[in-house]
Structure formats: C-alpha cells, structure tokens
C-alpha cells in the first residue's frame, strides 16, 4: 500500500502536557448576569501545543477586578451581589486570560415560573426521568412529562391529579392531587420523595434540602403556575460547552450549560441541568456536569434542563502522538474529519491502494464489480488524476443510474403492496425515480413531486399502500422520516417522551394529508386528489364529512407546520404544496439527505440510524453534517455533487486496513470500515464473478410458477422493481427488505446464510454452469495460475499475493480432480469475507 501522506514531526505534544500551555482562555469571555442571586460558571481552558484543550478551571488562580458587585462562590463560579461590571482574570504559570461580566437587575427577583423553578427540581431529582414518572404511562399512578418537557401537563397532574389518556382529554378514574394546599408539608409531592411515605423511587431529597424547600414554598404559596407564556421564562434552547471534548484517560472536564430564553437573554444552567452519559464505561458525568474519562472510546453526554435536551460528544483519547500524519486534504470533508482525528489523537490509515479503491468506488457508485481487464488497466495507469477520471466515468455510467434508482426505490418504497397492489403502479413509480436520477433532478424537486403528488402519475402511487389511502398520521410520519430523518411516530398517541415533538404538532402535520383521497373503486383508476373542505361531492349521500379531528381533543385539525405556522389552503389549492415548500427549505431536509448519502459510503450515517435524528442521538461530526447540508443547499440539492464530494475525499479513499492505533475506531473514519454488501449487490457480484446470471421468477410454488413470469435473462437483482413479486431465498437470507415499511436492511450474518453457502443453489449451481467463467477458462486451456488470477481480479479486484497464489496452486494440483479443486477454490472465493464486503 502506498503511503501518500506526509508525516510531520511537530512539537512533542506529549512533553507539553502538564507543562505551560501555549494559550489560556476563559469561557464564556463575556456574559451578563441578571436577577437576584444570579450566578455564572466560568471555565479556564488551556490550549496545549498540539491544539488539545484542557479544563484547568480548578487549577488556575482566579481574580476579580472592576466594581465590587460580585464574588467567587467556587472555582470560576461567579455570584452577583449588585449591579456593575467586573473583570475576571485566570492565571496559569506564565499565561493569563480575561473575561468580563455585566451585572444587571441584581436587586430584582425573576418572576416565578412553574416550568422553570419546579420543573428544575423535578428534573434534578430524577422524578420526571423517563424510567420513572416521566415514562409514557407514568409510575405508581402519577405522571410527569419527561424532563419537564410539557410543564402545563405536569402542573395539571400535580395539582389536580389524573393521568394521560390517549383517546380523550377526559380524566378517567380517581384524581389524586399530589399537593395539599391546607397542609403543604403533607403533600404527596413532598412526602414521597422525602421518604416520609413509602416511595418506589426511594428517597430523592431530604427535608432540609434546597429541593424540598423549593417545593414546600411553592405549595405554601398556593401552588401558582406563574408566568405562562412569558418570554422571560421560556427557554428556547440549551447550549453546552464544549460541544466536543477530548480527554485522556483519567482526565476530566466540566460542562458549561447555557439556556437561551425567548427574550434573547441567556442564563447559566450548569447547576440546573441533569447529565447522563450514553456510555459510562467510556466517560462518566456527575451531577455538576464534570465529565471523567474512563477508557478509550467516544460517547455522548446528554444534558437536560427546562424541557430541553442537548448533548456533548466526549472522546477519550490516548497519549499525544509525537508524529501525527500531515494529511493531504481533497476538500472540506477531509478538513473536518481529519481535524477531529487529530483532536482525538487517532492517526488515519494510509491512502488505499489502487486495487482497493477501484473495487470500493465501483461498488459504492454503481453496485458493480469492476471487470478484471479494467482493474488491470486502472492499476497500471500512471495518470495522477486517474481516480478523479474514474469517478467521472462511473458517475456518467448507465450502471450509476441503475444503482441509484435502486437505492431510492428502497427509500421511497417501490413495491407492489406498497403501491396499490398493482405491479404496473410500482413500475410507474419506479420509472419516475429512474427518470429523476437519470435527468439529474434536484432532490428538493423530487421531494416536492412526491409530497404534492396528485392525479395518476408515478409518485402519486406511493400514497396507496395496500390499495388504500394510508392513515394521515402514518403517511405524514413516513414523509418526515424520509425527508427529515426524524421519527415523530411516538407523538401520534402522546407527546414525544424524549423530544420536543408534541401530539398537537404531530396531528397538525398529519392534517396536511387529512384531505388526501383516492378516486376509484376496487383497484381501478385510482386518482389521488385533495378533497375540498367546502364541497360535499356526494358526502351528504352517505352522511359523511372529511374533517380530520384530534384523537384526544376531538377538535378539527388544521394543517400546521412543526414551527406552529397554520396553513390555510383554499379548496382550489393543494395543501401539501405549502408543506413541501416548507420542508425542503428546512435545515432538517438537507441534513437528512446528506446523512443518508454519507451512510451509503461508510456503513453508518453521521447520525445513525440515518432516520433517527434526535437531540439524544447527536451526530459524530456536527460541523461536517452542517457543512455538507449547506453545500447541498448551495448546489441546488444536487445529489451527484455530494456523492462526488464524498468519493473524492481522502477520507473516503483511506485504506480499509486499520493500523494498531486506529483499530478500535468505529465512528471517526480513520480507516474505511468494511461493510457487508447489500443482498442484491452481493447476488449480482456472485453472478458477475461466476459469469452465470441469476434467474428471477415471480412464483414461489411449482403450481404458481406455471402461470407466473420470469425476469428477462441477465436481469440484475438491483433492477428488480418488485421485491414482493420476485421471490429469492438468497435475497431474503441476506436482508433484502420487502419495502412494506420504511426499509431497514438487516446486514448481520445468520445461520441461514452459512447453510446457503454450503448447500444453496446460488453458490453451487453457478460453479458448474457450462456457460460460466470457470468452465470457459478450463475449456480454453488456461493454467491454474491464470484461473486463480482471473478470479482474484474478478472478485477482489487484485491479484493474489505470492503466498496466496502458491498455496492455491499447490492445493489445486494436489487433488485428484482438477475441476473439483477449481470449483472448491471459486466457492471459497465467493464465501470469503473479502468478497462479501466492500472495504
């Protein structure tokens, strides 16, 4: 393998650790503190010679200057006492850093807010944890929204009692208030967590705690809700610093949490937030937001407060590398990926060999193995731009159109049962996808056409799963999942337990599909249209109406975007047009699209799974995701442009062979991960290597086979438009989805695959076929070595290493039956991981 990067011998970073940093700074550098008792945590950040940053808050000397209106209540913790402006100075060795704080309204109490003040107690005490009362069904007859996401519901359930009902707003059963206004200290809300009454969740706080006092005061004052929609108390988002941090094993770093309010104000929420590590074995986090690194790896720390969630990515890294490779960067993908590798101290593998690259890029862009002659030609070429030229060739190839049509057939669910149970309709729909790919149609245009489809065209067929118009909620949830990469489904029955999606938002979005109707009866002439709201069109004949009602409140639903904007579409307008226009301009749209594309090349998305964007599942490379999305928007949603950016990057072109230093890396793209070939691609590859095309029939049983059809000879598996029509045992075993729901391919190995390798028709019949590659080579009098070379090139896009070739030649020569030995060799090639994976 050619090492094409340059190694730089920089400063020995390891020697610098613990020594004077090259820079020191304070975070935040400037902040305004408001209201009585306002506090702000500051962090002192040391920057070492290798660019690594350390939290040295506890190790620096803190000083205050300026007005005497504040004091330190802890390391870097500033407490305001009176209005004014102060300057903070941190000193570490010879380095100093400064920050400022404005102190305003320190003599004024902030208005009480149930959402903020009581919600904080419930959250910090774990009461509204999703495994406790914050679960969908609550716990012990008492329910709270997870993380105080829905404070009005919490208030109702605490003050009046009752539980959430899916289908009605009426409260069923006995309502037990959790507070006692006459005897506040007897409130269940206090007695249970304080351990005065048996409590399944144990003691959450003591009677002399700040939490107990806060709740008792609130009940004693009549349990007000306080400011309801006051911008002063409405938190719009949470921010955590640092968003990404690297720690050496045993190191620690404090997180800084800032709440942004609707009035533009910010407030330090570091002490109000609840922290949780997704992988405590990698890094743990305590109640104060201090992250402690345990073992090498990467995890996310989730931060919840005031109904919001954010997260920080934590990488636990090894010792600083004395020689971190200086890598050639092809584009911004490399800048952002390599920057993180450097920060995480993970050296990348060298650039892939030509043989490695040609196989990988052919499979990734076209789903097709390169022919042996092309492999030889590419490897032999001395053209320095040959990789770019090959990428151009592949992206202009008809195989590219075939392959990406198949990719989107999958995502858009082209299948007979998903498209009205009419093979012609799945074909119409698939043809629309094919034309879109072949004509370079911008992805936002594809989305518009699919979302707004009416009449009898291809994309309209996707609104006919199982021959009916799907329920509006399910239809909407699928569109959001496909185009936003988000799962709103939970919010169909209740507010989303972990995200800020409410049931009202879900049904407001579903209402865009509430007028969706099909004209026609029993499988013929299904025309998709949006039923007018104010025209009966025969509804009176059957005492019907078309209003879509909220399942709980029964109120008529109006199309409402996720941002709360209600869309009024007149009868002569397609209500989904406004939805489509809005969706394609949202950041989610581009992010979901590029993330999906990325996953096809690296086996995982920057957010993974690709359709599960949520605050508790942060991207591994947020800047890269944002940059790719911006590029996608700027280039008018050109799919090919993003594909080209990816495959031209050095990141993509790195070797798949890990080094000792990056072997454990799974998420940072230090080497190309080996990915199992998709079922259809694998079957096509087997057909290609053996030279024997697969036969696909529409019937399963012998009886059905007599009346069924057969795909034309040479049809590739990726060209089968109806996975539910063309049965294939092989494809089922290797995870082909039937597309009856949004496909999630199962690429994990199973016993059935192993048995199929041993006894299945695909592996065995092709070896003996007279028209196959092996028999042709034998009949042409080719030597064992020539045959081995040919199959290596066809299957692996490389020639065998010397020891491989020698061993194989000896094995074939040893046996009494040359042909049988050659078949064994080809069988072994097809069953090898090197063949079944892209790497």
């Amino acid at each position, binding site marked *: 393998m050619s090492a094409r990067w340059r190694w730089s011998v920089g400063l020995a970073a390891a020697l610098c650790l613990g020594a004077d940093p090259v820079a020191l700074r304070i975070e935040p550098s400037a902040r305004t503190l408001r209201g009585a008792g306002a506090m702000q945590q500051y962090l002192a950040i040391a920057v070492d010679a290798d660019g690594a940053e350390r939290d040295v808050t506890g190790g620096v000397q803190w000083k205050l200057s300026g007005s005497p209106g504040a004091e330190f209540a802890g390391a870097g913790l500033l407490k305001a006492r009176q209005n004014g402006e102060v300057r903070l100075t941190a000193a570490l060795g010879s380095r100093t850093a400064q920050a400022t704080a404005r102190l305003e309204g320190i003599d004024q109490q902030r208005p009480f807010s149930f959402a903020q003040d009581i919600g904080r107690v419930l959250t910090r005490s774990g009461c509204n944890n999703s495994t406790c009362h914050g679960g969908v069904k609550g716990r012990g007859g008492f329910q709270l929204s997870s993380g105080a996401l829905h404070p009005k519901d919490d208030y109702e359930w605490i003050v009046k009692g009752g539980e959430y009902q899916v289908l009605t707003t009426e409260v069923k059963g006995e309502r037990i208030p959790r507070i006692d206004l006459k005897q506040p200290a007897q409130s269940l809300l206090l007695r249970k967590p304080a351990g005065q009454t048996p409590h399944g969740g144990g003691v959450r706080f003591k009677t002399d705690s700040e939490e107990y006092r806060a709740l008792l005061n609130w009940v004693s004052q009549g349990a007000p809700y306080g400011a309801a929609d006051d911008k002063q108390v409405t938190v719009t988002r949470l921010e955590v610093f640092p968003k990404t941090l690297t720690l050496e094993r045993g190191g620690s770093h404090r997180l800084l949490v800032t709440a942004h309010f609707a009035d533009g104000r910010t407030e330090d929420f570091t002490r109000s937030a609840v922290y949780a590590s997704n992988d405590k074995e990698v890094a743990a986090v305590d109640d104060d937001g201090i992250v402690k690194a345990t073992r090498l790896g990467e995890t996310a720390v989730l931060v919840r407060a005031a109904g919001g969630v954010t997260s920080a990515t934590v990488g636990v890294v090894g010792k600083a590398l004395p020689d971190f490779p200086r890598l050639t960067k092809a584009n911004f993908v490399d800048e952002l990926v390599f920057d993180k590798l450097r920060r995480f101290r993970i050296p990348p593998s060298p650039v892939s060999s030509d043989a490695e690259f040609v196989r990988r890029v052919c499979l990734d862009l*076209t789903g*097709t193995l*390169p*022919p042996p002659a*092309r492999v030889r030609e590419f490897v032999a070429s001395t053209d320095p731009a040959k990789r770019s030229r090959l990428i151009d*060739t*592949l992206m202009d*190839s*008809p*195989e590219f159109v075939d392959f990406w049509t198949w990719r989107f057939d999958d995502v858009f669910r082209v299948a007979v049962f998903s498209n009205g149970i*009419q*093979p*012609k*309709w799945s*074909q*119409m729909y698939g*043809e629309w996808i094919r034309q879109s790919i072949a004509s370079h149609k911008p992805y936002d245009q594809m989305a518009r056409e699919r979302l*707004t489809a*009416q*009449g*009898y065209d291809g994309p309209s067929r996707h609104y006919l799963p199982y021959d*009916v118009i799907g329920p509006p909620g399910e239809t909407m949830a699928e569109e959001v999942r496909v185009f936003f990469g988000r799962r709103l489904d939970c919010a169909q029955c209740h507010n989303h337990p972990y995200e800020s999606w409410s049931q009202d938002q879900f049904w407001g979005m579903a209402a865009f599909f509430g007028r969706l*109707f*099909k*004209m*026609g*009866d029993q*499988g*013929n*002439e*299904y*025309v*998709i*249209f*949006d039923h007018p709201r104010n*025209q*009966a*069109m*025969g*509804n*009176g*004949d*059957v005492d*019907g109406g*078309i209003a879509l009602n909220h399942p709980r409140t029964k109120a008529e639903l109006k199309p409402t975007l996720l941002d709360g904007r209600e869309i009024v579409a007149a*009868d*002569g*307008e*397609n209500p989904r*047009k406004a939805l489509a226009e809005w969706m394609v301009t949202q950041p989610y749209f581009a992010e979901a699209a590029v993330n999906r594309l990325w996953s096809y090349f690296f086996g995982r998305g920057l957010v993974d799974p690709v359709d599960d964007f949520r605050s508790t599942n942060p991207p591994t490379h947020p800047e890269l995701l944002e940059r790719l999305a911006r590029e996608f928007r700027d280039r008018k949603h050109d799919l090919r442009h993003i594909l080209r950016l990816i495959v031209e990057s050095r990141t993509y072109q790195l070797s798949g062979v890990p080094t000792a230093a990056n072997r454990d890396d799974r998420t940072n793209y230090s080497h190309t991960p080996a990915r199992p070939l998709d079922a259809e691609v694998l079957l096509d590859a087997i057909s290609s290597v053996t030279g024997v095309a697969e*036969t696909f*029939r*529409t019937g399963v049983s012998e009886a059905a086979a007599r009346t*069924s*059809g*057969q*795909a*034309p*000879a040479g049809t590739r598996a990726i060209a089968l438009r109806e996975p539910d*029509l063309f049965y294939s045992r092989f494809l089922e075993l290797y995870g082909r989805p039937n597309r009856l729901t949004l496909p999630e391919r199962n690429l994990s190995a199973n016993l059935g695959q192993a048995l199929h390798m041993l006894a299945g028709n695909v592996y065995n019949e092709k070896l003996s076929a007279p028209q196959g590659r092996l028999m042709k080579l034998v009949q042409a009098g080719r030597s064992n070595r020539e045959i081995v070379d040919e199959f290596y090139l066809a299957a692996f896009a490389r020639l065998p290493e010397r020891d491989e070739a020698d061993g194989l030649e000896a094995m074939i020569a040893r046996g009494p039956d040359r042909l049988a030995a050659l078949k064994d060799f080809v069988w072994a090639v097809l069953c090898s991981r090197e063949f079944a994976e892209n790497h």
Partner: protein
Amino acid sequence: MKALLVVSLALLLSPCVSGLLAAPPKAPADPRITSVHPLAVPAAVSTVVTVRGQGLAGARAMWCSVGSATARIEGAVATDGDAAEHVRVAIVAPAGFTGVLRLRLIASRGVSNDLPLHVVDAPVLDEPETVAIARGAPLAIAGRLVAKGEVDTVWLEAQRDDLLTFTAVSGVAGFDPALTLSEPSGSWFDAQRLNRLAFNDEPLHFPGLAQDARLVHRFDKAGRYALQVKAFSGQGGPDFTYLLRIGPGREETPLLHPPAVHAWDERRFTRRVGEAWMPGVAARGSGEAVKPPGVAMQGSEAEPKDAPLLTIPGLVEGRLTRPAQVHRVRVAVEKPQALAIEVETPAATMPRFNPVVRLLAPDDGGSEIVTNVYTKRNNNGLYMMKMIQAKSTVTLRSAGEYVLEVRDITTDVAGDDFAYRILVRPQMPHVGRVDVPEDRVNLEPGETRQVTVNIEREEDFKDLVLVSADGLPAGVTATAGMANPVERPPPPNGGRVERYVGKPQTATLLLTADENAKPGEWPSTVRVSIRTLRGGRTGAPILAKELPVLVIPRRPS
C-alpha cells in the same frame, strides 16, 4: 311416504345410481382457440397461420368476420407437448382491406371463440434480426414470446431526426407487451451493454384498458438501435403472440379507454353526447321525437351570477387548461323536473382528466344538489369511496336558476386536452346497455343451452321489453326461460347508487336442438334482439348480439 323414503335410500346406496346423482353429465367442451400466429398478415396474399387451442379435433374450416376473406385448413390437427393442439390455416385477406379480422375455427365439436388477426398494408416480417427503416413506409413484425422471460430484439437502422412510432399489439388477453428502445453504446463495465433510450409500456393501467404498448421516439443521431419486446412481469408461452408495428411520424395517442365492448354504453365518458345523442336515447324508449339541444355553450370562469344561462336541454363545453380552473353556467329550470346530466370527455379522459360536475342550488350558499361523484362507504371500515360518473340523474323539486360547475378532481393537473362536453336534459326513460355474455352456442341434437340477455333500465323506464332470437338454424328453437334469480340485496352503505347506475334485469333464452336436428356445416348467425313495448306497439329492434349457433353431431356414447 315411508316406502318412498326407503326407495330413495336404496337408490342412493346403489353404486351406479349414486354415481349418477353425484355428478351430472358434463357438457362437451367447445373448441377454444388460444392464439393465432403470426398475428398479422398482408392483404391479398395467402399466408399460413398457426392456430393453437384445445378441442380442435376435426377442424374443417375457419370463419372470418369479413366475408370476403378466405381460409383453408392445411393438414391435420397436431398435438403440442403442452396438451394443446394446433392447426395450420392458409388465409387470404381481401385486397385493400386493413384492420382486424375476427377468426373462429369450426371443428367437430362446433365453433370456437374468436381471436383477432390483423391485416396490414405492409410486409409482415417474422421476428427478423435487423430491419431497415424506409422513410414513410411502415413495417410490421409478427412475433411470439415462446418462453417466460423471453425478450425479442429487432435491430433497426435509423437516421438522424427520424420520428418513429413503435406499437406492440398483444394477440391474446393476459399478455401485456412492453417496448424498450436501446442503443448499443456500452459502458465502462460492459462494452456490449444496451443502454435504454426510451421505455414506454402503456403509462396507464386499469382493468379493461388496452394493453398495447406504444412508444414514439425521435432519434438524435443516425445509428443502429435495438427495439425489444417483452412481456410485463416476464410472462411467456406459445400463445404469447404480438404484432410490432413501426410507423413513420407520430401516431395519434389512443384514447385511454378501450374500444366499446357494447354497441351502446351511455355511462362511458368517451361516448358522444352531441346533437344526435338525445334522438338515440329516445329511440330506445318512447320512440317519440325529441327536441335536441342547440349549439353548445362555452363554460365560463365568471362568478355564478355572471355565468351564461343554459336552457334545458342544453350543451355546455370547454377546456380546463389551467390547474384548479372552474367553469360554470347557470341552468334555467322552469319547473320541477327530473334531469339527467351527462358528461363526455372527448380528448383526455379518466384517469388523466377526471371532471367533477356539480349542480348547485339557487340559494345563496350554492348547496350541492347533485354531483357526478358517486360516494359510498366501504363496508370494511366505512371509509368513504368516490367514483366519478359519466351520467347522473336528479329530480329537482323547484324551479329556479341553478348553477352547474365543472373542474378536474385534482387541483394541480390540467392540459389543453382537458376538454369536456356536458348535456343537461330531461330524463327520458329508456333501455340502456344490452348485453349477451355468451360468445357462441354449439348444440348436439336434443341439447338445450342458455343464452342470457342483460339489460339496464334507465331513468325509470317501466315498459315491457320483448326478447327475440332470429336466424336460428334448422331444428333449433328458442324459448323463454326463467333462471334462478340472484339475490343481491343493496349494499348497506351504497349511497345514492340509483343516480349513477341503471336498473339491471336479466332474461333467459333457451336454445334447443331437436333430437332430429341435422348437424350444420357452418354456424348460423343468430340475432338476439330486444324491443320495447308501449301501447301495444313494439319499438324498433335493438340488437343485443350476433351469436354463432351450430348444431354439431352427437358424441358417441
């Protein structure tokens, strides 16, 4: 009674009698032809075609729908490996004739069903490998997809800017051909790869629609191209015959709806409802002269109060060229009356153009009185289902100026071909569709077979209807029969179905061959007709079907 019971039980227990009771004797199978290959022949040239089917033994003649065509059986019936039979027939289509011949085979067990044979004004090639395109000259290729998954490829040389229309016509029901035009431009992976330029299996599909594939292509460059025919879903077999036509220029796009099966079908959007329509309707009812509508009025985009005024009977027509466009007219109703509203789509039709027609009340709100959208509920879940109809009826209780409006059912789809014509007329009780499902009747001496006559009573037609069969062969008589009525209770959530469908009624004719009837050489063409009866006088005959009836020899017992 007790004695009778014993006898009955004894009969049932007797092996031979119980066998008789268990299964009535099976009627002998009629000959059935399943394909004709080649599917096309040139006119005035003797061409040998192979007719496949079952029950062809004793094939002696071919019956053609065009009398001047001749057909001669060549050789004996041969048995195919798949339990079918075939026979070769030399056919000469009349000179100057182009179109479709309907062929029936006459065998020892009678006359068969019919299949089409296309007569073309071009040489018919038999699956050639390469064809040369001569400008202005059409080509016809007859082919057959013998095996499943088979793809027939024809190479053709085309010049730059050639505009050609390719049409694949299916020879049998159930074979749905698809066309692909490709160029051998290869790829980096495969130098021999054919790359698709155009693919145009028929774009629309629903039951009953013609399955023929049509593809129009203008060639950007001169070269060699591959035209491929395959079956949708890869079916194939010895009966999968097709005709591939290659013609210069752009052929007219066929109507989306298939040709009418019935001579009269007033509930199809593609019938003509112009000036001649109302007299035609009257002829099937009272027979009285009617005042036809005047010149068609143009639909207007004006607000209802400013829309033009239509008097009854009246025609309104227009084109909805822009999405969500709505046309209106006011309709002057001088007295309470029963109306029929008929909609025609002379160009684009369902499911591309789906006109919604609504009659709105004179009140301020313009409430909907009737629409051509038939709404019912699905009994599985009570979902509302909607279907647009070419005709709706309504009884208006009061006079006034109503508003008729028309638009496409979608808000986004429109076109220059979204043309409509709407006839608003008084209801005229009459017989609508008349239908005989039987295709042919073969009778052994002494045998009786049933001929079913279905009619639809339209617009509250109440008069008596006579059914007759003329031209029966010697020894065959027709009598009225009474079939066991099929109990079909109205669906519980069927909506106002009476507005959108005729009232169906079925009569049965029984054709009986005398014990001494002599087997015929040729089938007789029996005209099954109906007539209306009013005031003791019958109306003009309305032909239901011309039915081949043949007396065949009794099978040896």
